[in-house]
Protein backbone atom coordinates (compact mmCIF):
# COMPACT_ATOMS: atom_id res chain seq x y z
CA UNK A 1 0.00 0.00 0.00
CA UNK A 2 1.17 3.49 -0.70
CA UNK A 3 1.16 6.04 2.11
CA UNK A 4 -1.28 8.23 0.20
CA UNK A 5 -3.67 5.32 -0.23
CA UNK A 6 -3.43 4.60 3.50
CA UNK A 7 -4.30 8.19 4.23
CA UNK A 8 -7.38 8.00 2.01
CA UNK A 9 -8.65 5.10 4.15
CA UNK A 10 -7.73 6.68 7.49
CA UNK A 11 -11.35 6.74 8.65
CA UNK A 12 -11.65 2.96 8.07
CA UNK A 13 -8.74 2.32 10.42
CA UNK A 14 -10.18 4.77 12.94
CA UNK A 15 -13.49 2.91 12.88
CA UNK A 16 -11.70 -0.41 13.29
CA UNK A 17 -9.89 0.92 16.35
CA UNK A 18 -6.50 0.55 14.75
CA UNK A 19 -3.65 3.02 15.12
CA UNK A 20 -1.55 3.26 11.98
CA UNK A 21 2.18 3.56 12.68
CA UNK A 22 4.49 4.31 9.80
CA UNK A 23 8.03 3.12 10.49
CA UNK A 24 11.10 4.02 8.45
CA UNK A 25 14.75 4.84 8.93
CA UNK A 26 14.08 8.47 8.02
CA UNK A 27 15.21 11.10 10.50
CA UNK A 28 12.46 12.97 12.39
CA UNK A 29 12.64 16.06 10.19
CA UNK A 30 12.43 13.91 7.06
CA UNK A 31 9.45 11.96 8.41
CA UNK A 32 7.73 15.15 9.48
CA UNK A 33 8.17 16.51 5.98
CA UNK A 34 6.49 13.42 4.53
CA UNK A 35 3.72 13.62 7.13
CA UNK A 36 2.97 17.24 6.27
CA UNK A 37 3.09 16.54 2.56
CA UNK A 38 0.52 13.78 3.02
CA UNK A 39 -1.52 15.93 5.37
CA UNK A 40 -2.00 13.01 7.71
CA UNK A 41 -2.26 12.54 11.44
CA UNK A 42 -0.75 9.07 11.27
CA UNK A 43 2.18 8.66 13.60
CA UNK A 44 5.57 8.44 11.87
CA UNK A 45 8.11 6.45 13.87
CA UNK A 46 11.78 7.13 13.23
CA UNK A 47 13.80 3.94 13.28
CA UNK A 48 16.98 5.78 12.30
CA UNK A 49 19.30 2.95 13.28
CA UNK A 50 16.89 0.32 11.96
CA UNK A 51 16.77 -1.49 15.31
CA UNK A 52 13.02 -2.07 15.21
CA UNK A 53 13.36 -3.33 11.64
CA UNK A 54 15.99 -5.76 12.85
CA UNK A 55 13.80 -6.94 15.76
CA UNK A 56 10.95 -7.86 13.44
CA UNK A 57 13.15 -9.20 10.63
CA UNK A 58 12.73 -6.38 8.13
CA UNK A 59 16.28 -5.12 8.05
CA UNK A 60 17.85 -4.12 4.75
CA UNK A 61 21.57 -3.78 5.41
CA UNK A 62 23.04 -0.72 3.70
CA UNK A 63 19.75 -0.42 1.83
CA UNK A 64 19.63 3.37 1.66
CA UNK A 65 20.45 4.12 -1.98
CA UNK A 66 22.06 7.49 -1.25
CA UNK A 67 23.57 7.19 2.22
CA UNK A 68 24.27 3.43 2.22
CA UNK A 69 22.97 2.97 5.73
CA UNK A 70 20.60 0.34 7.12
CA UNK A 71 16.90 0.82 6.45
CA UNK A 72 13.69 -1.16 6.76
CA UNK A 73 12.48 -3.30 3.93
CA UNK A 74 8.71 -3.08 3.31
CA UNK A 75 6.45 -5.11 5.53
CA UNK A 76 3.21 -4.79 7.47
CA UNK A 77 2.37 -6.18 10.91
CA UNK A 78 -1.06 -6.00 12.52
CA UNK A 79 -1.06 -6.50 16.28
CA UNK A 80 -4.25 -6.56 18.34
CA UNK A 81 -5.00 -4.59 21.47
CA UNK A 82 -3.24 -7.22 23.58
CA UNK A 83 -0.07 -6.80 21.55
CA UNK A 84 -0.46 -10.15 19.82
CA UNK A 85 0.46 -10.27 16.14
CA UNK A 86 -2.59 -11.19 14.08
CA UNK A 87 -1.45 -10.70 10.50
CA UNK A 88 1.82 -10.11 8.69
CA UNK A 89 2.83 -9.18 5.15
CA UNK A 90 6.37 -9.42 3.84
CA UNK A 91 6.69 -9.12 0.07
CA UNK A 92 9.66 -10.70 -1.63
CA UNK A 93 9.89 -7.68 -3.87
CA UNK A 94 9.45 -4.10 -2.71
CA UNK A 95 7.33 -3.30 -5.72
CA UNK A 96 4.58 -5.42 -4.20
CA UNK A 97 2.17 -3.93 -1.67
CA UNK A 98 -0.31 -5.29 0.81
CA UNK A 99 -3.87 -5.08 -0.41
CA UNK A 100 -5.50 -2.29 1.55
CA UNK A 101 -8.99 -3.80 1.45
CA UNK A 102 -7.62 -7.04 2.88
CA UNK A 103 -5.84 -5.20 5.69
CA UNK A 104 -8.98 -3.26 6.61
CA UNK A 105 -11.08 -6.40 6.49
CA UNK A 106 -8.71 -8.18 8.87
CA UNK A 107 -8.57 -5.13 11.15
CA UNK A 108 -12.35 -5.13 11.34
CA UNK A 109 -12.39 -8.84 12.12
CA UNK A 110 -10.20 -8.46 15.19
CA UNK A 111 -12.01 -9.56 18.36
CA UNK A 112 -14.26 -6.95 19.91
CA UNK A 113 -11.86 -6.66 22.82
CA UNK A 114 -9.31 -5.39 20.34
CA UNK A 115 -11.45 -2.40 19.43
CA UNK A 116 -11.89 0.83 21.29
Amino acid at each position, binding site marked *: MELAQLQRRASDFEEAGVEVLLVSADRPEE*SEKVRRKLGTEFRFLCDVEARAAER*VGLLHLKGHPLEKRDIATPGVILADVDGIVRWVFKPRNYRMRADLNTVIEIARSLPESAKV
Partner: protein
Amino acid sequence: MIPGRGPVSGTREPPPAAKEADMFIVGWVTWLAGAVWYFFELRRGIYRLHPVWTYLLMAAGLGFGAAAVVVAPDIQRWVSWGAMPALTGVFLYWMLVYSVTPGWLRVRPGEPMPDFELRDSKGGAFRPRDLAGRRAGLYVFYRGGW
Protein backbone atom coordinates in the same frame (compact mmCIF):
# COMPACT_ATOMS: atom_id res chain seq x y z
CA MET B 1 13.94 14.08 -73.17
CA ILE B 2 17.21 15.66 -74.14
CA PRO B 3 19.58 12.97 -75.32
CA GLY B 4 22.18 12.15 -72.68
CA ARG B 5 20.57 14.27 -69.96
CA GLY B 6 17.81 12.03 -68.68
CA PRO B 7 14.25 13.09 -67.84
CA VAL B 8 13.73 16.76 -67.10
CA SER B 9 10.18 16.84 -65.87
CA GLY B 10 7.38 14.69 -64.49
CA THR B 11 9.74 12.52 -62.45
CA ARG B 12 10.18 12.04 -58.70
CA GLU B 13 12.85 10.80 -56.36
CA PRO B 14 12.30 7.21 -55.29
CA PRO B 15 10.02 7.15 -52.21
CA PRO B 16 11.79 6.62 -48.85
CA ALA B 17 11.45 3.33 -47.08
CA ALA B 18 8.19 4.52 -45.62
CA LYS B 19 6.93 1.14 -44.52
CA GLU B 20 10.11 0.35 -42.60
CA ALA B 21 10.04 3.77 -40.99
CA ASP B 22 6.42 3.22 -39.97
CA MET B 23 7.29 -0.18 -38.49
CA PHE B 24 10.14 1.39 -36.56
CA ILE B 25 7.81 3.99 -35.07
CA VAL B 26 5.21 1.33 -34.29
CA GLY B 27 7.97 -0.56 -32.44
CA TRP B 28 8.82 2.38 -30.23
CA VAL B 29 5.17 3.28 -29.62
CA THR B 30 4.39 -0.32 -28.66
CA TRP B 31 7.38 -0.50 -26.34
CA LEU B 32 6.48 2.79 -24.67
CA ALA B 33 2.85 1.67 -24.33
CA GLY B 34 4.12 -1.30 -22.32
CA ALA B 35 6.14 0.94 -20.01
CA VAL B 36 3.30 3.43 -19.59
CA TRP B 37 0.83 0.63 -18.87
CA TYR B 38 2.99 -0.61 -15.99
CA PHE B 39 3.10 2.81 -14.33
CA PHE B 40 -0.57 3.42 -15.08
CA GLU B 41 -1.43 0.25 -13.14
CA LEU B 42 0.81 1.35 -10.27
CA ARG B 43 -1.08 4.64 -10.10
CA ARG B 44 -4.31 2.67 -9.84
CA GLY B 45 -2.87 0.63 -6.96
CA ILE B 46 -2.43 -2.54 -8.99
CA TYR B 47 0.85 -4.26 -8.13
CA ARG B 48 2.00 -7.24 -10.13
CA LEU B 49 5.11 -9.27 -9.53
CA HIS B 50 5.21 -9.95 -13.26
CA PRO B 51 3.29 -7.42 -15.39
CA VAL B 52 2.63 -9.75 -18.30
CA TRP B 53 1.04 -7.13 -20.60
CA THR B 54 4.03 -4.87 -20.15
CA TYR B 55 6.39 -7.71 -20.97
CA LEU B 56 4.37 -8.63 -24.07
CA LEU B 57 4.13 -5.06 -25.37
CA MET B 58 7.84 -4.49 -24.84
CA ALA B 59 8.67 -7.75 -26.61
CA ALA B 60 6.40 -6.80 -29.51
CA GLY B 61 8.04 -3.38 -29.68
CA LEU B 62 11.47 -4.96 -29.79
CA GLY B 63 10.26 -7.25 -32.56
CA PHE B 64 8.81 -4.47 -34.70
CA GLY B 65 11.91 -2.35 -34.21
CA ALA B 66 14.25 -5.22 -35.02
CA ALA B 67 12.28 -6.09 -38.16
CA ALA B 68 12.45 -2.47 -39.32
CA VAL B 69 16.21 -2.20 -38.95
CA VAL B 70 16.83 -5.61 -40.52
CA VAL B 71 14.68 -4.83 -43.56
CA ALA B 72 16.18 -1.40 -44.10
CA PRO B 73 19.51 -1.20 -42.27
CA ASP B 74 20.54 2.30 -41.44
CA ILE B 75 23.17 3.27 -38.89
CA GLN B 76 20.97 5.98 -37.36
CA ARG B 77 18.11 3.55 -37.00
CA TRP B 78 20.36 0.84 -35.53
CA VAL B 79 21.60 3.25 -32.88
CA SER B 80 18.08 4.44 -32.09
CA TRP B 81 16.73 0.90 -31.95
CA GLY B 82 19.65 -0.17 -29.73
CA ALA B 83 18.27 2.03 -26.98
CA MET B 84 15.20 -0.20 -26.84
CA PRO B 85 16.90 -3.43 -25.68
CA ALA B 86 19.14 -1.35 -23.39
CA LEU B 87 16.12 0.23 -21.69
CA THR B 88 14.41 -3.16 -21.57
CA GLY B 89 17.47 -4.52 -19.78
CA VAL B 90 17.40 -1.72 -17.21
CA PHE B 91 13.66 -2.23 -16.68
CA LEU B 92 14.02 -5.99 -16.22
CA TYR B 93 16.99 -5.55 -13.87
CA TRP B 94 14.90 -3.27 -11.70
CA MET B 95 11.88 -5.58 -11.83
CA LEU B 96 13.63 -8.87 -11.21
CA VAL B 97 16.86 -8.12 -9.36
CA TYR B 98 17.13 -4.69 -7.75
CA SER B 99 13.67 -4.65 -6.18
CA VAL B 100 14.01 -8.06 -4.52
CA THR B 101 13.93 -7.41 -0.80
CA PRO B 102 16.02 -9.14 1.83
CA GLY B 103 14.87 -10.03 5.31
CA TRP B 104 13.04 -12.89 6.89
CA LEU B 105 10.10 -11.81 9.02
CA ARG B 106 10.74 -12.92 12.58
CA VAL B 107 7.23 -12.38 13.87
CA ARG B 108 4.37 -14.75 13.21
CA PRO B 109 0.66 -14.51 13.89
CA GLY B 110 -0.10 -15.56 17.44
CA GLU B 111 3.22 -14.30 18.79
CA PRO B 112 3.66 -11.12 20.86
CA MET B 113 4.76 -7.99 19.02
CA PRO B 114 8.48 -7.49 19.73
CA ASP B 115 9.18 -4.54 21.95
CA PHE B 116 11.33 -1.61 20.89
CA GLU B 117 11.51 2.08 21.61
CA LEU B 118 11.39 4.75 18.94
CA ARG B 119 10.86 8.48 18.63
CA ASP B 120 8.12 9.78 16.40
CA SER B 121 8.49 12.66 13.96
CA LYS B 122 7.30 15.12 16.60
CA GLY B 123 9.80 13.93 19.18
CA GLY B 124 7.46 11.79 21.26
CA ALA B 125 8.51 8.38 22.54
CA PHE B 126 6.73 5.22 21.45
CA ARG B 127 6.82 1.58 22.48
CA PRO B 128 4.42 -1.06 21.15
CA ARG B 129 3.40 -1.81 24.72
CA ASP B 130 2.06 1.78 24.95
CA LEU B 131 -0.90 0.62 22.86
CA ALA B 132 -1.66 -2.36 25.11
CA GLY B 133 -5.23 -2.35 26.29
CA ARG B 134 -6.06 0.73 24.20
CA ARG B 135 -5.80 0.10 20.49
CA ALA B 136 -4.64 -2.36 17.90
CA GLY B 137 -1.56 -1.30 15.94
CA LEU B 138 -0.84 -1.50 12.24
CA TYR B 139 2.94 -1.24 11.81
CA VAL B 140 3.75 -0.26 8.25
CA PHE B 141 7.48 -0.52 7.61
CA TYR B 142 8.52 1.36 4.49
CA ARG B 143 11.81 2.19 2.83
CA GLY B 144 11.72 5.93 3.45
CA GLY B 145 10.71 9.16 1.84
CA TRP B 146 13.82 9.77 -0.22
